[in-house]
């Protein structure tokens, strides 16, 4: 089972055009001009006798993982707050602020129509921005962490079985 996972994962890594395109090594400049983390993702291999729990705690504390996590949160938290607030404001305005929403903008189109279509537009834009952010800023580091963590835990699981 573990073996098979590893092989499948390796195949993904190999076939992944996105990975190949960026696989020129650590320290290259990424999408926003900040250098990618230089530290190896996980501190050197486990001392013999490490349990899976210790390995996960160790990975969680590593600089590389903290970087992936903070990149994810720095995008997701403000973006979620923004779209949720915008949606709640829209729903509350649509149910309570009738006069504001009925104000005409162009021809038959009023504020309500613009706000409703605006919800569609912001949803599409945020989807695009999230996918781009994840692809450029997170995927590669996460994939490296995945292999390293799996390398570390593999031995333990085989012993347990």
């Amino acid at each position, binding site marked *: 089972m573990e073996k098979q996972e590893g092989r499948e994962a390796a195949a993904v890594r190999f076939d992944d055009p996105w990975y190949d395109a960026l696989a020129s090594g650590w320290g290259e400049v990424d999408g926003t001009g900040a250098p990618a983390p230089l530290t190896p993702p996980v501190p050197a291999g486990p001392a013999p006798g490490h349990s899976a729990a210790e390995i996960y705690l160790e990975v969680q504390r590593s600089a590389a*993982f903290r970087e992936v996590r903070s990149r994810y949160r720095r995008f997701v938290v403000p973006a979620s707050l923004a779209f949720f607030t915008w*949606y709640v404001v829209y729903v509350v305005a649509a149910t309570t602020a009738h006069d504001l929403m009925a104000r005409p903008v162009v021809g038959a189109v009023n504020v309500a129509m613009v706000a409703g279509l605006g919800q569609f537009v912001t949803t599409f834009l945020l989807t695009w921005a999230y996918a781009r952010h994840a692809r450029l800023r997170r995927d590669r580091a996460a994939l490296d962490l995945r292999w390293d963590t799996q390398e570390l835990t593999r031995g333990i699981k085989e012993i347990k079985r």
Partner: protein
Amino acid sequence: MTDDHQTLALLLFCAFVAATLAITTWVSRNRRGSAEEFYAGGRLFSPMENGFAIAGDYMSAASFLGISGLIALFGYDGMLYSVGFLVAWLVVLFLVAELVRNCGRFTLADVVAARMRERPVRIAAGTSSVTVSVLYLVAQMVGAGSLVALLLGGSSEAARSWTVIGVGALMVIYVSLGGMRATTWIQIVKAVLLMAGTVALTVLVLVRFHGDFNQLLLSAAERSGHGKDFLSPGLRYGGDWTARFDFISLGLALVLGTAGLPHILSRFYTVPTARAARRSVVWAIGLIGSFYLMTIVLGFGAAAVVGTDEVRASNAAGNTAVPLLALDLGGGAGSTGGTILFAVVAAIAFATILAVVAGITLASSASVAHDLYASLRRRRARQYSEVAVARVAAAGIGAVAIALGLLARDLNVAFLVGLAFAVAASANLPVLLYSLFWRNFTTRGAVWSVYGGLIPAVVLVLLSPVVSGSPESLFPGADFQLFPLQNPGLVSIPLGFLAGWAGTALSPEPPDEAKHAETEVRSLTGAGAV
């Protein structure tokens, strides 16, 4: 409706059923029934395929016929639904899809149980998932009965009962024989048909108005009898404060509930990686967003072309707005074009129902077999029997849904979909988000947050005007109404989050740091993901 419509529509129904049965047979040839295969289709779908399947799973007949109908009747207020149904996908994309794919195997309970004591958490999450699925399923079954009766003109009791039984039997066949692979392909076919039909009708509406959206809105406002008010909010939800809070409650349930729907969550397990899960959600958002944009055009088109009064005369809930619009766009009643378009719309609506019920049945049979049965069975039961249990569970759930669908066929069940979203948002979403993001979350917190959302949601509905105390209630004779809103979300969603927090704070055991580290590392990197 004339005989021509009926014959042609029936032929198209039969063609769709034959095609889906062929798909089921084709994909289930030479396959051993492993759990991976049955619940997740072998996890080998591409992001595009899965994106279409997600869209096919999500866009129900209620969206296709119901939202356009609401727009045709109430103008702008119908549009509020479209917005809620779409914006909900941002919650799924940002907070749920990738992380759930990385942490879980088949169900929602997998994600939570990875961090907690398995048994109580699985039983709680399994129970709430099955509740959500059954509520949603009954709404779809009753909808199928009345829809077919409506579209084929045969409003006899027998025709509706047989439709409910037929839909139930078909979904059991698809799910128990074909598993996730057959269900997925049926959803893909349905999504393609639905998008094609919607695009065709939208183009015809826009051609009718020479591509002038402004003109379309003006004619809709004029023919609705409401004038300018038709284009601004307030016709349906603008009355007293109860109606306003009711809509705010529904709006919250729609946006937060989607990420807790078991049949949506199970779709992320059908792709190989979290990255593929993300890309399939991006596909789905594109498809679903453009679909809801087109339903807006169709709704205002129906008001402008058919007229609000005619729509209301045909069906008080507005469900026939799109079929009537199709009839008119094709050249009017009696013309060949009108007959064909009407029959195509009827067949698409039917295909939509079949695909949605198959998806829900599969997800709930996974919850029964993988969560409830696996936790409650005796210790030494044999391993391979889980898929067999799931197949039997699918048949059992089908039987329950048929029975409830028949019992409820004369009742107004429109509230059930909103209720299913509210339960998903109150019971499933808090526990999922806490498990993924909260370091100190404990087993007691998990169990409390599921029941603390599920029980208030169900109880509040029992005490609401949809069950008793008004002429439109399930039991118009009785009056034990205590809660004014039809949708419990406004109260039960915060209660679900609060109960999870309280359970954690009052927990006797400390949170398991190592398990949290494992969940966090796995959810963000995919280490150890199956």
